[in-house]
């Protein structure tokens, strides 16, 4: 019973802590800081889910923003055009009710939206991944790059979601994209994606992922179904990117196709590489770092007249310096664990497959 109890405590504790933070933080934090916290959370989901594909399985996907776009537009279209049929209890425009009432008001809608967009992205991920993941090498990179661009172009030419104008809801009917995303949902998914990644990493299934990364031929010889493993990683990554898209769509006022270009995809690749390919902790840290850094530099450089214009130069410079100092990423392939802080008598031997 003890493990079960521990698990129940973990889940219950997480929900309570997140709920309390979700009610307290928007009132107490500076709005800009709170916005960075929210955008960081969404970036964490994107980076950690991409880490499943690029880090664990050693594939090179550069179309992750495409899955996010799919989820974002899918979810926003669902809540806007399904407003009358499904979500009539939500306000047509403007914020939800304050406090807990608003939480319960928005909860079913955001859950449905997240699930639907996650499944949509996962299904498309399966279709894209299955043919390209059978092959070895750079094919996936090219296919995902093409995929990301196709998604963007399709959105730009789809008038019901605003095309190039961006999508903020069905303006004629007065139904705007509801503001469903709260701190609770973003960080619940963050916890979920981290826990799923961690469990995978230290499970037999996950060892298969790592084996594919280290040596595909050897893995195949040892009986790992490499295609299946790669497709699972890819579909799982796409699912969470879709969910992140749903959260993004219901947080921002306006979705713009330009926000999901391939430059954005590269932002996520940068996060994973900077954090250390394969390191969950690294992905989380790098996602927060890269999201917050431009704003941190704005306020620190902005206090000196004339330095503000060098903000993005400094940003790029810091990235370069970091990659020179730590080419394997901030964390390499390591993770932050409990025994990093509390060193015990004897250290467990390093798992052979992950020895760097």
């Amino acid at each position, binding site marked *: 019973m003890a493990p079960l109890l521990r698990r129940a405590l973990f889940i219950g504790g997480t929900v309570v802590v997140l709920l309390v933070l979700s009610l307290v933080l928007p009132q107490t934090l500076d709005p800009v800081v709170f916005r960075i916290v929210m955008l960081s959370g969404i970036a964490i989901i994107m980076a950690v889910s991409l880490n499943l594909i690029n880090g664990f399985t050693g594939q090179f996907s550069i179309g992750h923003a495409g899955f996010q776009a799919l989820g974002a537009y899918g979810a926003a279209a669902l809540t806007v055009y399904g407003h009358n049929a499904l979500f009539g209890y939500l306000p047509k425009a403007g914020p939800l009710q304050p406090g807990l009432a608003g939480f319960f008001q928005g909860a079913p809608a955001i859950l449905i939206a997240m699930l639907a967009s996650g499944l949509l992205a996962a299904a498309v991920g399966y279709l894209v991944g299955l043919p390209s993941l059978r092959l070895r090498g750079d094919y996936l990179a090219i296919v995902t790059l093409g995929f990301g661009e196709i998604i963007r172009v399709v959105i730009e030419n789809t008038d019901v979601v605003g095309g190039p104008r961006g999508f903020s809801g069905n303006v004629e009917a007065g139904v705007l994209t509801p503001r469903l995303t709260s701190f609770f949902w973003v960080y619940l998914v963050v916890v979920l994606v981290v826990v799923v990644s961690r469990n995978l990493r230290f499970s037999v299934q996950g060892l298969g992922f790592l084996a594919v990364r280290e040596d595909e031929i050897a893995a195949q010889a040892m009986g790992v179904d490499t295609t299946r493993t790669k497709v699972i990683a890819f579909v799982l990554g796409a699912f969470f990117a879709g969910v992140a898209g749903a959260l993004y769509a219901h947080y921002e006022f306006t979705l*713009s196709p330009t*926000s999901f270009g391939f430059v954005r995809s590269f932002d996520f690749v940068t996060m994973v590489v900077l954090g250390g390919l394969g390191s969950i902790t690294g992905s989380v840290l790098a996602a927060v770092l890269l999201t917050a850094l431009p704003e941190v530099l704005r306020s620190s450089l*902005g206090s000196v007249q004339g330095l*503000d214009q060098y*903000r*993005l130069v400094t940003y790029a410079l810091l990235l370069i310096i970091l990659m020179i100092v730590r080419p394997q990423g901030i964390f390499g392939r390591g993770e932050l664990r409990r025994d990093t802080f509390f060193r015990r008598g004897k250290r467990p031997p390093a798992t052979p497959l992950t020895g760097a």
Partner: protein
Amino acid sequence: MRVTRAFLLRGVLPVAALAAAGALAGCRQGGGGGGGGGNEILVGHFASMTGDTSTFGTETDRGIRLAMEELNAAGGVLGKQFRVQTQDDASKVEEAVTVVTGFANNPDMVAVLGEVASSRSKAAAPVLQAAQIPMVSPSSTNPDVTKVGDYIFRVCFIDPFQGYVMAKFAREQLKMDRVAILRDQKNDYSVGLANVFNDEFKKMGGTIVADVSYKEGDSDFRSQLAQVKPQRPQALYVPGYYGEVGTIARQARELGMNVPLMGGDGWDSPQLVAGAGGPGKALEGAYFSNHYSKDDKSERVQTFVKTFRAKYGSDPSALAAMGYDAMKLLADAITRAGSPDRKALRDALATTQNFKGVTGDITIDAQRNATKPAVVLQIQGNQFVYRATVQPPDAAKSASAK
């Protein structure tokens, strides 16, 4: 590799320390940002100072700062000096929202100026509307921007009006009957201009002989041009951005089409003529509508051009002129409101009548859009020569009300 304590000390701590230091500096600045109070009027400006469209932001900011200096030198407004806080949004929608979130959180912020790109104005406007801070966009011409709410204004005309201006100019001054349209289908701006041009030109008795499309970033337009050529148009209306227009003009000439091109304010760039093969080449004699011309002989424009040149050493672009007008109009409204109170300022902005701006007499209509004239320029060598001013008719007003 396992994470050791030594590694944490050497690798992660400096990074964390750096981030923390930055954040701390940020908090301090954020807290003291609005400390001016009392003797000054704080105006925010969110602009693309860097990134894809950095010229938009830097040019507009120059105009705004010139206006601010003039206003302050003349003693300010209501005995207070203006302070403009310019924040860069790196040409990104997300960052624009972040910047205005900061503005909205500052209790001393009286009004916000920005943006040029309509997509960023549209994304930022709901934040300021919710905070009830008046926002004046200097040159976002997309009709949707001011529909966000009653605190959102602009000092430029909206897209459709330029389509009307060019249709009227082509029909009445150039006496044209047959025009072909080449539109950038991905670009909302281009589609807006093309649609209205199409409607108005037909209404005035002309014929649209062909209507073909291309995409921003394309570099080969020969198939579209070959489609248009047999229809024998007297002109090509290409309301796109300058990047593609030069190439289109060159390729049209290569295919033996020697008719003039016509366009909108998206052409206004020093790089336009160079892209068409240089002065006197493919774009010689082309026409485009714009917000203002530095060659306009009126005293208002000439004084502005002279002071701008004295300060920055270059001629003001239309964006600079719009920024200048936005700032001056704001100051005018604050004077009329009698206080820098946001609500009073909003009401004063909404009732602006015939404000004498360098880009023409500006009247704010019921949709919070500016009713004002446009100019038509002709490309001669490296110069954009002033050809005509087209006044807004009642018809254009009803188009903007749509």
